[in-house]
């Protein structure tokens, strides 16, 4: 669009036609105060803070609703404007409780900031202020009415942004009030966006209220541990007796891949870390058959000794390893290296929630066809097949909605269920639950592949006309269906793809070779190439997958099983007896259904307590930073190294610490108390150079970047907190063998309020589920209506 030139406070400014004056001013550093204006949400012109004088217009104008125009002359610094701003603040403060000292927003309140800046210090009213008790609207949301300045941001972010429409404005005039959808409480997606966007302390979160003052916290930006979208969440931390506790999660600076968004899990479900059942001492099964606390020395020695025994007597092939969807890439890489190099086994797998292997194979050789999460926010057209992003990929759903709302993106949805995103869909197709494969055939032109109707023909037609289509598919697609889908998509100009999996680092687990037949980067174990050079001898026949390991165990053929951050017994409904002849080592935060069967349980740190990288389901690589700390637990990384050490392996061969100066980037290294102490102790004991220890994940990131070409991203940008694209895929997968390969995918079926085993230990998720059950029992008749906007 053409640019226009205009003048603000004597300064010449050029901006594209249609830019709002407030944005144009802000861009060049002219601050225009605003309460109701919020970029991306509808305009309100309600707070009148942004009034400016525009020449030739008799009345003051709101900069938040005025598009810039050629030759416009604007004044924002005159006495008149100063007085107008001051007046608005005086008026809004008139009824404001000014309880800043006890207000959650104190210190990060826009009203405080503006009062400080534009001055409205003297109160000339002698009337009593209205007082109202604060209300709890949901486990997450509290409302303190007198603090509300009626900027309507919450109403809009909930309606326009979330498409939930759970907040409204009721009454009129000075009795106007923000109201929740169920009269005295809220029934919503509990994302907390309303709280985050509230410029004052009117909406506060149950998780954080009255816990501390913002300036008393440390803030660490890291990646949410829950779903496969990988939002950046900034954790507010404070020191407690047994470490560093997380008391808040938000996305304050909006700098992450998720922009304005976080769902309930990213914002509040960090609380599992403080769950009372958290393990903080290793457990060892005693001769009486009971698990009992043990020292780290004892537990590690015992586990290491027994694993070595099994390896040395029965061979590596009688040991299995199950990795995690939520550990870092470095840990996953290290785990498979440990399995293959130290245990000598290819029996390694994880709970797979998407068939990345087939995706990698299908996309082989096609550069730039793998989509980033960011593409969902910018693509002109999107085809969503399968999955329910609102439940399983809340951030993706946000991007899709925003893209439709602000850019009029064309969203096409094909699903067997009535998913919520149908509301944003330009065209949709209901298909049978087993019709996903048929759909691709149909789209590709095979009329017999789907019971076609007029509308399905129309659907096909619009899809086939799209250029730059983003194709998102769920775990409904596996194996050869993915090839078919990708082949169809490659026939459309510039189509891009994303395969949706369920957990924070599901993608990383697959990428890092937690697979019986594939090394990191989907390199077949039969042709280890650079890995052979690096690792020395490697088992070159494919190992057992997860199910096969348990089958082997029940046949008495699995001597030992090492489970890291996973709960397969519950997830796969394994009969507990299956493991009775297997020596079981489990690393976890909790005594899960799997851990209770273990011979040794090692209390592990969670993602918020460690440093490393994770890869979201779209292949965006992001840095995870150590935020919290818990006395008594250790990172999975450290535990793997220590086990290897106990088994007589040379840690230096596992983690190439002390070399590779690329890793020497100091500041992002684990620096929190516990971890750095342990680094120091190890380093001192082993007379090593001071900066690198075998527990330093960056030493492994070096190795990953050396051996896995996909991961050769800009390291500095990554460390700066940016999301970096990995560039899949590799071409190594052997097409012939892949035909017989089982995909082993078990979709997690999580919802907005669940998160696998981990979610069960989140009290906020529990509370939400519980309150919905009790409340909706009473309001069974409540209909959920499509909101026409």
């Amino acid at each position, binding site marked *: 669009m053409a640019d226009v030139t205009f003048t603000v406070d004597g300064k010449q400014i050029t901006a594209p036609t249609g830019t709002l004056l407030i944005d144009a001013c802000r861009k060049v550093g002219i601050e225009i105060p605003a309460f109701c204006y919020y970029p991306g949400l509808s305009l309100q012109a309600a707070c*009148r803070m942004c009034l400016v004088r525009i020449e030739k217009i008799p009345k*003051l104008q709101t900069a938040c609703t005025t598009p810039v125009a050629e030759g416009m002359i604007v004044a924002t610094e005159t006495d008149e404007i100063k007085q107008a701003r001051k*007046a608005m603040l005086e008026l809004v403060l008139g*009824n404001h409780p000014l309880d800043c000292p006890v207000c959650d927003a104190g210190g990060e309140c826009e009203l405080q900031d503006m009062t400080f800046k534009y001055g409205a210090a003297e109160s000339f*009213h002698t009337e009593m202020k209205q007082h109202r008790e604060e209300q709890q609207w949901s486990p997450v949301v509290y409302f303190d009415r007198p603090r509300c300045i009626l900027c309507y941001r919450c109403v809009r972010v909930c309606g326009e942004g979330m498409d939930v429409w759970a907040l409204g404005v009721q009454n*009129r005039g000075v009795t106007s009030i923000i109201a929740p959808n169920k009269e005295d409480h809220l029934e919503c997606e509990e994302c907390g966006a309303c709280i985050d966007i509230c410029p004052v302390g009117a909406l506060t979160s149950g998780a954080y209220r009255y816990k501390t003052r913002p300036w008393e916290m440390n803030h660490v930006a890291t990646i949410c541990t829950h779903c496969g979208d990988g939002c950046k969440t900034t954790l507010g931390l404070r020191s407690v007796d047994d470490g560093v506790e997380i008391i808040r999660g938000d996305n304050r600076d909006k700098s992450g891949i998720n922009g304005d968004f976080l769902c309930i899990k990213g914002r509040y479900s960090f609380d599992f870390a403080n769950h009372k059942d958290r393990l903080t001492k290793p457990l060892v099964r005693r001769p009486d058959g009971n698990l009992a606390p043990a020292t780290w020395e004892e537990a590690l020695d015992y586990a290491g000794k027994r694993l070595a025994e099994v390896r040395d007597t029965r061979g590596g092939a009688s040991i299995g390893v199950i990795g995690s969807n939520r550990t870092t890439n470095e840990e996953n890489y290290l785990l498979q290296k440990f399995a293959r190099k130290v245990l000598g086994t290819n029996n390694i797998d994880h709970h797979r929630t998407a068939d990345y292997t087939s995706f990698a194979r299908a996309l082989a050789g096609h550069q730039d066809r793998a989509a980033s999460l960011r593409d969902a926010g910018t693509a002109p057209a999107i085809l969503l097949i399968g999955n329910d992003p609102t439940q399983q990929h809340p951030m993706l759903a946000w991007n899709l909605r925003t893209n439709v709302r602000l850019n009029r993106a064309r969203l096409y949805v094909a699903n067997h269920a009535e998913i919520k995103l149908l509301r944003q869909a330009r065209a949709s197709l209901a298909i049978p639950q087993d019709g996903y494969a048929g759909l691709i055939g149909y789209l590709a032109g095979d009329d017999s592949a789907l019971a076609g109707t007029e509308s399905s023909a129309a659907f096909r037609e619009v899809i086939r006309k799209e250029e730059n289509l983003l194709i998102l598919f769920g775990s409904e697609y596996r194996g050869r269906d993915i090839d078919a889908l990708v082949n169809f998509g490659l026939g459309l100009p510039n189509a891009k793809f994303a395969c949706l999996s369920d957990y924070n680092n599901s993608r990383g687990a697959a990428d890092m070779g937690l697979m019986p037949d594939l090394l990191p980067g989907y390199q077949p174990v039969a042709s280890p190439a650079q890995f052979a050079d690096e690792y020395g001898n490697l088992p070159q026949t494919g190992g057992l997958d997860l199910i096969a390991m348990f089958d082997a165990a029940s046949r008495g053929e699995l001597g030992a099983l090492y489970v890291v951050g996973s709960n397969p017994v519950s997830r796969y409904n394994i009969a507990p007896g299956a493991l009775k002849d297997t020596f079981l080592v489990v690393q976890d935060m909790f005594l899960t259904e799997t851990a209770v069967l273990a011979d040794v349980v090692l209390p592990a740190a969670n993602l918020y307590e460690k440093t490393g990288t994770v890869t979201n389901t779209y292949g965006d690589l992001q840095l995870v930073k150590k935020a919290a700390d818990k006395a008594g637990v250790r990172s999975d990384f450290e535990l793997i190294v220590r086990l290897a050490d106990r088994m007589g392996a040379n840690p230096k061969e596992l983690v190439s610490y002390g070399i590779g100066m690329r890793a020497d980037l100091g500041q992002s290294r684990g620096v929190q108390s516990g971890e750095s102490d342990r680094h120091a102790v190890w380093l001192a004991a082993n007379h090593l150079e001071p900066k690198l220890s075998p527990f330093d994940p960056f030493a492994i990131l070096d190795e990953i970047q050396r051996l896995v070409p996909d991961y050769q991203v800009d390291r500095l940008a990554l460390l700066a907190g940016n999301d970096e694209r990995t560039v899949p895929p590799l071409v190594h997968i052997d097409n012939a063998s892949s035909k017989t390969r089982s995909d082993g995918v078990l979709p997690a079926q999580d919802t907005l309020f669940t998160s696998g085993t981990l979610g069960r230990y989140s009290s906020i998720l529990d509370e939400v589920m519980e309150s919905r059950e009790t409340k909706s029992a009473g309001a069974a008749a409540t209909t959920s209506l499509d909101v026409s906007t």
Partner: protein
Amino acid sequence: MANLVSHPDVVPLLSMRFGKGASALDRYLELEGYQSARKALEMGPEWIISEMKASGLRGRGGAGFPTGMKWSFVPKQSEKPKYVLVNGDESEPGTCKDRLIFEHDPHSVIEGTIIAGLAISAKMGFIYLRGEYRYLLKIIERAIEDAYAKGFLGKNIFGSGRDFDIVSHTGAGAYEVGEESALMESLEGKRGIPRIRPPFPAVVGLYGGPTVINNAETIATVPHVLRIGSAEYAKLGSERNGGTRLFCLSGHVQRPGVYELPMGYNLKKMIYEVAGGIPGGKQLKAVVPGGSSTPVLLPSEIDIGMDFDQVAKAGSMLGSGGVVVLDESVCMVEFALRTIKFYQHESCGWCIPCREGTDWLKKTLTRFHSGGGVNKDIDNIKYLAENMLGKTFCPLGDAAAMPTIAFIKKFRKEFEDHLDGKPCPYAHTAESVLV
């Protein structure tokens, strides 16, 4: 029941059918009804608009915008349907004229709506009545039914090949929805919150289509303009203020009532001759010339012609034609309080200055009137009003601020007389209901 009082200076144009049973269609036809619509059909949009422009008719809703010009802003071509919206929300205190038109001459509103529709090539019109006017809704519904039955509405109106529908609609109690953009919101089934302008209704209005919004009296005048011709009509009034309008005289006058008088008619004469002067031999203290939102005039300021320009020159506004007359017994603080209490009650609450400003004005004036005032309050009241003026989202804020500023400016002494715990010198009610 509402009725029209007579006086020799009254010019019965708009009111010519009042009291003559014209709500019955046959009677309306006998009294030259629906002739203008037929003529308009014959002559076409351009002629209608040029007649309206030439007539000097200015909006009777309050702002006095030239009607012909308003209609000419509607784009000829439009993807979305165009609409006519008749504003019968009549809620400005002191105003009770549209009510008479709906009661006595509903077909004139229907005919005017048809003509406005023809002028802008709309196929649909809405007549919005305030919720309190339920009995009028029945009258207008009946009239619309009759017009449909006769083929004046619906398909092929008057056999012209054109279609035009009218839907009557009721509000449910809210002054603010009289504001044109809030009116559209209300008609669309929403809270009466004004819309951001631009775009103006003539371009993007009801249901997103170009929309002409006029006051009911304006619309009812339209057939008369075409009936007697624009030149004749213009001549009735004063310069740039064509025709006659219904003035509602209320308060302390001998013969309160609604009088149709030429635009530019002298205010003093209106009070002393037409309405028979102040009862009980009392002195005049003040006049609110155009509904409660217009700044008060002193007795020394009322020797003016009642048209939009002359009243503006006198520092007030002609507004909605509600002339409220106050005799010497009135406490101006109480009057100011009652005025602001209304705006506080009716503020939609959307924007800070109006929502908070009207409330603080009400609180301060309440305390002040009950004897708790301090000197600083007087300036504070003015400061509050000045901080609202020109800064609110819609003109309701101004409507509250302007009279308040005038009360303080013109009656400061009376405010001072209330200071220091002095009881209201004018107190004449045993019990105050103003809380």
